[in-house]
C-alpha cells in the first residue's frame, strides 16, 4: 500500500510533460522493480530478463486489466446441511406456535407467536390468557416489527464507542463494591412499571442487599391518579377490575377502555359480547360516554356528552350526588343539556343496580376515581360488575411515579447520585418537563442505560446496554388480573443484548446466571412439588395456573375532598397516542402508518379542537398554532375534530422524537414539553394562537368536507343503523326500507333486484355455483366443497385497528410513509372507514371495516386486460401478482376501492433484519403491481394441506376442511370477534348462519356486484329519555 502511495506521490510530483516520457525511465527504478517483484514474482522475473519498454507497458496494461478482476470476488461457498438431529416438531414450511406474553405497564397480554424455522413472524392471541382471550391489540401485533427494527441498539457502547458486556460488568461491579461499603449509597436504579414477579423479587433483593440504594419508578403513562383515588375511597391501593360483560349500563368517563392498552382486548370482547344483535338475541347493553376528545370509545357510545376534561369531575360530583353518594358539589351548575344527560343516566344507573359500570380514564382526577368506586359501592356493583384486585405491579406498586422521578432528578441535581442504572425507558424524553432530567443527569458520574434502541436518554449516558426484546429473552409477566405468564424466547437475541434480569443479577453478585435460571429459580421456589411438569405446562399453555389475584372485599369511604373552581381558558388534555402510545412505538412504521381510530391521521400528532373553536380562532386543519399553558408552550398543527368538546384541546404524546430512529425522528411535535409535574395530563387555562404557516396532515380519509361526506354517506345507506327497538319490531321491513331508500322513489328495478338478493341470501352460493357450472368457460371451475365468505358485525367493531395491523403483519404489507399517504397511496388491504352523522358538534360516529368484498360479479375481473385478477373456484377474487402489468383499471372499477397499487418500490427488499420478519407464505410485492385482500388465501391453503394430509378421520369424516380451521388474520386478531369467516356451503358454519340474519346486508349490492363480504347492520340502544 505504501508503495502505491509513494509511487503515486512520485508521479504526481512530475510535470505533465515528462509524465509520459519518463514512464520507461521511472519503471526502471529499483523501487518499482522491487515493488513489482513483491506483487507479481513471476512477472518480476520477466522484467528482469527483458526490461523492454513494450513489455513493461504490456505488463502494466495487463495488470491494470487484471486488477479489475478483483471485483469478481468468488462467492463464499455455502453448504446446506440437513439437521443431523431434527429439532423437536420442526417441519420446514410448517410454522410452530409458542405461548408467551407481551409485558405492559397495566398488565401483560398473553400471545401465541408463529415461528417459521426459528423466526418469529406473527403474533396471535392466546385463548387461555385472561387479557387476550385469543385476540390481541395493535400494539402486540406491531411488537414483532420492533424486534426486527434495523435501528435497534446492537452493541454495548461506552461513551459512543463499542465496548463489551464484560467491561460493563467490571465497572458496575466496582461501583457496587465501593457502594457496598456505604450500603449502596449513591447508586440509583430507575425502572418502568414492573409486572414481572422475578424482576420484582430481584429488585427487592437488590434493595435488601444495599439498604441505601434507591429504586425509582417512572412509567410515563402511570396510574398515580387511580392509586390516589383508591386511597381516597378505600384507604388502600386497589385495582378496579371490571367485568364488562356483566354490565347493562356502562359509563365511560374520559376513558379509552375499549382500545388503549392490553386489557382493552378483554374489555372490548366482554363489552361487545352484549351488543351482538341477532334475530333471536335482541338484548343489548348501553354505553354512555362523557369525554373531551373524540375517541374510539366515545364513538361506540349510544349517548355521548362532550365536556372539557377538567369539567368532568364536576359532572361526576353531581352524578354521585344524584345517586345519593355524599360528596360536595361545586357552585357552578351543569348546563341544561348536561343536566338532562345526567338525569337520564342516573335513572338508568339506578334501574340497573348491580349491573352498572363506570370506567374513568387514568388521567381523570383522584376524586373522580374515588367517586367511581363510591358509586359502584352505592349501586352494589362491587363483586358483580367490578372486582377489586391488588395492584398488578410486582415492585413499587405503592410508588407514586411523579414523586419518584422528581426525587430522583432533584437528588441527581444535588449531587447525591454517583451511579444511575436505568432499566429501559427514556426519561430524558418522557420525564416531566420541569424535572429537566437531561441536565440533572450531567451531575451523575456514571450513567448506564439498558435500552432496546438508542434514544434521547442513551445518547447522554456513559453506557448504552442493548436490551433484549421480549421475543428474545426469558422473563415472566403478570396480567391485569394477576395471572402470570412465563415469557419464553422465540429466537436467540439478534444482537448482543441482555435483559434487566441480567443486570440486576450482577448487582446481586450472581453475574452470569442466565435469565432462564433466574426465572426458573423464582418459580421453583414457589412451586416445590412437580415443578418440572408444571413448568412445561406453563410454557405450553402460556399461563401459570392459580396465580390469579384474589379479590378484596372492602367498602368505600366518604369522599371529603372539596371541589375546585371552574377554570377558564382552553383545557388541554395530554393523552397517550392511540397508535404510538407514549412514544414507545414511534420508530415502528406499522404503528405510525396505522390510522388513528376516529381521525384517521397517520404519521403526526395534532392539536385537536372543536369545529366551533377553530372557527372562533380563525384556523383550519393543518394551521400551526401555539398552545401555552402553565408557562410552557408547544407549536403544532390544528386538527378540527367533529364532536370535540368546546373550549378544550387534545394533544397526543409520543411524537417529536429527536433521536427516535429512522422512522420516528422528527415525526410530529413533542408535547411532553407541556407535561410538567403539575400538569401531567394537561391543564386548564391554556391560550391558543395561530402562529402562521400550515402543514399537511396525512389522513387516510378526506377531512375538508364534513357536510358533503356525512350527507352522501347517509343517503347511500353505507353504514345501516337502526335502533334496537325498531329491530325488535320488524327486522325485515327495515332492511328493505334501507335498500329502497338508496334508490328513492325511482327504483324501477325494485322487484327483480329484491328477488335476486333474497335468492342470494337463500343458499345463494349453492345455486350460483350450479349456475356457473353450466356457463361456458366455467366448467369444473366452481368448487362444490368450499365457497368462502365473510360477515362483519358493525355493532361489534370498535375501530381499534388491530385487524389492520394483523393484516400488515400477515401479508407483508409495505409501509409507505407520510408523503405517499398524502398522495393517497396507503397500502393497507383492509381499512376501517369512519362516517360521521348529524351535527358536527356531537356527531354519531360509525365505523366500517372494508376488506376486499370478493364480489361474485367482480367489476375488477372483467376489466383486467391480462387476466391477472380472476375468480377462483372457491369464490375468491384472486390476484396474480406475477401476471399484473399495472394498468390500475381494476382499482378504478372497484366500487369499494380496496385495491392497492405499488406506485413505487414500497417493499423494503434491502434491509436484512426486516427480511426475517416476513411471512414466507406470502409474496413480497415489487413495484408496478396491484395487490389486495385475498381472504388470507395462504391460510386457506394451509388448512387444505392439513385436511388432505390427515385424510378421513373420525373428526373429519368427509376429509374436508372443517369450520374454524381457516381463520383469517383480521378475524383471528379481532378483540370483539366482529369478523366471521368460513365456508358458505356449510350450512352449519357461523358465516352461513350470520348471512341468514335479517340485518345482513351487502355493501353497494344494488350494483349487482354480489359481495361475499357482508355486514350486519349497526344497532343502537338509545335511552328513550334522551332521544
Amino acid at each position, binding site marked *: 500500500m505504501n508503495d502505491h502511495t509513494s509511487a503515486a506521490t512520485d508521479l504526481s510530483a512530475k510535470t505533465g510533460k515528462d509524465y509520459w516520457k519518463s514512464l520507461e525511465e521511472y519503471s526502471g527504478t529499483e523501487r518499482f522493480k522491487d515493488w513489482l517483484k513483491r506483487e507479481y514474482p513471476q512477472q518480476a522475473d520477466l522484467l528482469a530478463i527483458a526490461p523492454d519498454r513494450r513489455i513493461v507497458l504490456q505488463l502494466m496494461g495487463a495488470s491494470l486489466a487484471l486488477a479489475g478482476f478483483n471485483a469478481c470476488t468468488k462467492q463464499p461457498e455455502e453448504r446446506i446441511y440437513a439437521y443431523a438431529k431434527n429439532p423437536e416438531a420442526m417441519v420446514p414450511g410448517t410454522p410452530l406456535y409458542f405461548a408467551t406474553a407481551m409485558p405492559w405497564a397495566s398488565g401483560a397480554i398473553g400471545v401465541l407467536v408463529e415461528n417459521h424455522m426459528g423466526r418469529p413472524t406473527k403474533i396471535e392471541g392466546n385463548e387461555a390468557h385472561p387479557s387476550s382471550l385469543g385476540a390481541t391489540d395493535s400494539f402486540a401485533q406491531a411488537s414483532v416489527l420492533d424486534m426486527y427494527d434495523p435501528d435497534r441498539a446492537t452493541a454495548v457502547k461506552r461513551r459512543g464507542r463499542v465496548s463489551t458486556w464484560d467491561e460493563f460488568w467490571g465497572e458496575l461491579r466496582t461501583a457496587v463494591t465501593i457502594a457496598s461499603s456505604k450500603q449502596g449509597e449513591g447508586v440509583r436504579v430507575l425502572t418502568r412499571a414492573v409486572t414481572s414477579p422475578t424482576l420484582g423479587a430481584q429488585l427487592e433483593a437488590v434493595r435488601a442487599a444495599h439498604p441505601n440504594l434507591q429504586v425509582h419508578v417512572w412509567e410515563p403513562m402511570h396510574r398515580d391518579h387511580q392509586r390516589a383515588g383508591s386511597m381516597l375511597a378505600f384507604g388502600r391501593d386497589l385495582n378496579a377490575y371490571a367485568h364488562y360483560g356483566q354490565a347493562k349500563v356502562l359509563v365511560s368517563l374520559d376513558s379509552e377502555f375499549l382500545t388503549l392498552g392490553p386489557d382493552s382486548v378483554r374489555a372490548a370482547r366482554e363489552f361487545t359480547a352484549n351488543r351482538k344483535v341477532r334475530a333471536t338475541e335482541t338484548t343489548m347493553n348501553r354505553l354512555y360516554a362523557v369525554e373531551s376528545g373524540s375517541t374510539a370509545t366515545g364513538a361506540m357510545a349510544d349517548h355521548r356528552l362532550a365536556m372539557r376534561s377538567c369539567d368532568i369531575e364536576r359532572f361526576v360530583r353531581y352524578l354521585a350526588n344524584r345517586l345519593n353518594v355524599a360528596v360536595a358539589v361545586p357552585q357552578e351548575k351543569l348546563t341544561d343539556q348536561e343536566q338532562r344527560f345526567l338525569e337520564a343516566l342516573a335513572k338508568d344507573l339506578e334501574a340497573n343496580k348491580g349491573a352498572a359500570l363506570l370506567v374513568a380514564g387514568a388521567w381523570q382526577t383522584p376524586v373522580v376515581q374515588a367517586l367511581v368506586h363510591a358509586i359502584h359501592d352505592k349501586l352494589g356493583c362491587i363483586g358483580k360488575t367490578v372486582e377489586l384486585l391488588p395492584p398488578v405491579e410486582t415492585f413499587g406498586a405503592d410508588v407514586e411515579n411523579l414523586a419518584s422521578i422528581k426525587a430522583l432528578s432533584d437528588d441527581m441535581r444535588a449531587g447525591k447520585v454517583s451511579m444511575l442504572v436505568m432499566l429501559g425507558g427514556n426519561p430524558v424524553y418522557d420525564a416531566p418537563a420541569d424535572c429537566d432530567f437531561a441536565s440533572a443527569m450531567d451531575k451523575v458520574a456514571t450513567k448506564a442505560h439498558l435500552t432496546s434502541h438508542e434514544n434521547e436518554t442513551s445518547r447522554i449516558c456513559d453506557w448504552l446496554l442493548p436490551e433484549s426484546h421480549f421475543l428474545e429473552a426469558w422473563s415472566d409477566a403478570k396480567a391485569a388480573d394477576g395471572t402470570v405468564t412465563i415469557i419464553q424466547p422465540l429466537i436467540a437475541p439478534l444482537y448482543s443484548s441482555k435483559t434487566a434480569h441480567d443486570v440486576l443479577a450482577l448487582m446481586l453478585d450472581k453475574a452470569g446466571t442466565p435469565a432462564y435460571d433466574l426465572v426458573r429459580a423464582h418459580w421453583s421456589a414457589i412451586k416445590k412439588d412437580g415443578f418440572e411438569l408444571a413448568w412445561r405446562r406453563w410454557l405450553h399453555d402460556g399461563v401459570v395456573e392459580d396465580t390469579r389475584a384474589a379479590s378484596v372485599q372492602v367498602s368505600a369511604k366518604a369522599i371529603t375532598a372539596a371541589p375546585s373552581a371552574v377554570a377558564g381558558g382552553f383545557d388541554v388534555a395530554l393523552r397517550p397516542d392511540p397508535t404510538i402510545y407514549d412514544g414507545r412505538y414511534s420508530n415502528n412504521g406499522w404503528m405510525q402508518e396505522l390510522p388513528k381510530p376516529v381521525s384517521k391521521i397517520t404519521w403526526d400528532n395534532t392539536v385537536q379542537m372543536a369545529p366551533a373553536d377553530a372557527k372562533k380562532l380563525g384556523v383550519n386543519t393543518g394551521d400551526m398554532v401555539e398552545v401555552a399553558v402553565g408557562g410552557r408552550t408547544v407549536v403544532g398543527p390544528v386538527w378540527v375534530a367533529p364532536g370535540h368538546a368546546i373550549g378544550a384541546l387534545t394533544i397526543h404524546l409520543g411524537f417529536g422524537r429527536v433521536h427516535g430512529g429512522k422512522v420516528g425522528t422528527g415525526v410530529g411535535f413533542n408535547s411532553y414539553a407541556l407535561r410538567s409535574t403539575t400538569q401531567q395530563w394537561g391543564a386548564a387555562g391554556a391560550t391558543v394562537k395561530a402562529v402562521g404557516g400550515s402543514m399537511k396532515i396525512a389522513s387516510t380519509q378526506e377531512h375538508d368536507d364534513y357536510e358533503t*361526506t356525512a350527507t352522501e354517506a347517509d343517503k347511500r345507506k*353505507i353504514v345501516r343503523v337502526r335502533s334496537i327497538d325498531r329491530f325488535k319490531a320488524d327486522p325485515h321491513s327495515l332492511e328493505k326500507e334501507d335498500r329502497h331508500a338508496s334508490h328513492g322513489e325511482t327504483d324501477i328495478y325494485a322487484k327483480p333486484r329484491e328477488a335476486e338478493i333474497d335468492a342470494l341470501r337463500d343458499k345463494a352460493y349453492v345455486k350460483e355455483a350450479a349456475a356457473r357450472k353450466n356457463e361456458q368457460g366455467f366448467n369444473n371451475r366452481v368448487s362444490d366443497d368450499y365457497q368462502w365468505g365473510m360477515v362483519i358485525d358493525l355493532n361489534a367493531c370498535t375501530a381499534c385497528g388491530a385487524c389492520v395491523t394483523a393484516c400488515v403483519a400477515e401479508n407483508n404489507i409495505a409501509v409507505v410513509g407520510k408523503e405517499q399517504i398524502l398522495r393517497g397511496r396507503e397500502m393497507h388491504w383492509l381499512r376501517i372507514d369512519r362516517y360521521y352523522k348529524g351535527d358536527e358538534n356531537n356527531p354519531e360516529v360509525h365505523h366500517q371495516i372494508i376488506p376486499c368484498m370478493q364480489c361474485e360479479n367482480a367489476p375488477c375481473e*372483467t376489466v383486467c386486460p391480462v387476466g391477472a385478477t380472476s375468480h377462483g373456484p372457491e369464490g375468491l377474487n384472486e390476484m396474480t401478482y406475477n401476471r*399484473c402489468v399495472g394498468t390500475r*383499471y381494476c382499482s378504478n372499477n372497484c366500487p369499494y376501492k380496496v385495491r392497492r397499487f405499488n406506485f413505487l418500490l414500497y417493499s423494503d427488499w434491502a434491509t436484512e433484519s426486516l427480511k426475517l420478519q416476513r411471512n414466507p407464505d406470502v409474496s413480497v410485492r415489487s413495484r408496478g403491481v396491484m395487490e389486495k385482500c385475498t381472504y388470507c388465501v395462504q391460510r386457506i391453503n394451509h388448512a387444505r394441506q392439513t385436511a388432505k394430509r390427515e385424510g378421513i378421520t373420525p373428526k373429519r369424516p368427509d376429509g374436508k376442511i372443517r369450520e374454524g380451521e381457516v381463520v383469517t388474520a383480521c378475524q383471528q386478531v379481532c378483540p370483539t370477534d366482529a369478523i366471521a369467516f368460513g365456508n358458505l356451503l356449510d350450512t352449519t358454519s357461523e358465516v352461513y348462519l350470520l348471512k341468514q340474519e335479517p340485518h345482513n346486508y351487502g355493501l353497494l349490492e344494488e350494483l349487482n356486484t354480489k359481495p361475499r363480504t357482508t355486514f350486519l347492520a349497526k344497532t343502537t340502544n338509545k335511552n328513550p329519555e334522551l332521544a
Partner: protein
Amino acid sequence: MSDHMHDQRDQKQQDAIIAPGHTLATITDKISEIVLTPPLKTPLGWHAMMGIGSIGMLLLGATVTKLVFTGIGIWGNNVPVGWAFDIINFVWWIGIGHAGTLISAILMLLRQTWRTSINRAAEAMTIFAVSCAGMYPLLHTGRPWLAYWLLPYPNTMGMWPQFRSPLVWDVFAVSTYATVSLLFWYTGLIPDLATLRDRAKHKAVKLFYGMLAMGWRNAASHWDRYETASLILAGISTPLVLSVHSVVSFDFAAGILPGWHTTVFPPYFVAGAIFAGFAMVLTLMLPLRAAYGLHDFITEKHLDVMAKVLLATGLIVTYGYALEVFMAWYSGSPYEEYMLINRLTGPYAWTYWALILTNCTIPQLFWYGPARRNIWALFFVSMSVNIGMWLERFVIIVTSLHRDFLPASWGHYAPTVWDWSMYAGTIGFFLFSFFLFVRVLPMIAMFEMRMLVPASGVTGKDSDHKHGGSHH
C-alpha cells in the same frame, strides 16, 4: 402572420378552393420548393419550432427514463384516482388524430375536393398524434416492460389477454388505426415522392426520394393501382374514424363508475374527437399557411368549412354534456346524482365550467360568418377547443374517479412536475415530428392539387384522376 385578406373580393373568389391563376407548374413549384430548398435557406420560424420540439424531445427522454427506473409513482396518480394525466393525454392525443382520418377517408369518399390542400398535413398530424397517444398506455403501466402481455401471441405461459377488458380492445383499435393511417398516408405520398425525386438536384436527395417513391413511373397501371389502393384504404379507414374513439370511450363506458358508465359515450367521443382534431388542424395550418404563404392553396373557403365542422361537432359535444346532466337526474341513482353535483360544485368544478366555456360557448362565435374567415378568431377558437377537449377528459377521468361510491374512499388528485413534463414532452415530440415532416415531405398533396386546376381537365367530381401525375 400578416393579413392577406383583400377587402374587394368577389364571392366566387372567396369560395374558391384554389386561388385563380395557378397552373399545373406553379402548384408543383410552390409546394416542392418548400421541401427542396437548400438547408441554409430554411425559414427561421421553422428553426424556432424545431428547437422547441427538440427541447420537448429531450424532456420526454428524461421523463421516460426517470419513469421507467423509478415507477409511475413519480406522477400524481393514486387510489382512487388510478388514471389521470396518463389517460387524459392518451385520449386527448388520439382524439386529435381523428381529423386527419376523417379528412383523408370520409371526405375523400364523399368527394369533398376542398379537403385536398389540408389532407396531407392532417394525416401527418394523425400519425404523430397517435404516436404520442400510444406512448401513454404503454408507459402508464406499472411494469411497461411487460406491457406486451396485452398482445395475443402464443406463449409458454399458456395465457391469452383477457378479451373482456376494454383495454385489450384498445390495443387492437389503436394499433389498427395507427397501421392503416400510416399506410394510407404513405400510399398518398408516393406520386409526390416521385415528383420530388425528379425535381431534386442533389444526387443524395434524388436517391432518398427515389427510394421512398418505390419506383413510381407515372404509368397508367400505377395510377390504376394507386386509385384502387386509395379507395380500399379509405374504405377501411372510414369505420375506423368511428370505431377507434368508440372503443376508447368503452374504457370508460364499460366501467361501473358514475360518470363513466354512460351509453352516450361512443358517439359523443367520436364527435369530440373530430371536434378536437379539426381544432388542432386549424392550430397547425394557420401559422404554416402564413409562414409559407400558402394562401392560394388553403383559402378562406377551407377555413370557413373547417369552422363549420368545428361548430357542428361542438354542438354535438354540447348535446353530450347536456345528456349527461339529464341522465344523472333521470337515473334517480344517488351515485349519478352526486357525480353531477360534484362536477358542477365539487373541488374540480372549475374544470367543468372552463370546459363549458371553451368547448360550448366560445365556438358559438362561428355562427357569425366573418368570424369563420378571420384567422385571429379561428386561432383563438381552435386553441380554446384544444384546451376544452383536454379539460373534458380531465372532468371525465379525474372528477369521476376522485369521488365514487364510498365517501370514505374519496380522495384528491394533483399532478406533479413529472406529469407536466411528460405532457410537454409529447407535445415536443409532436412538434419535432411535424416540423420534420414539413421540411422533408410535401405538406400539401401536389398531384391532387393539380387536379383542381381547370387546366388539368378534371371537370366532374366523379371523374378519374389520370390527368394528374408528375411532370417535368
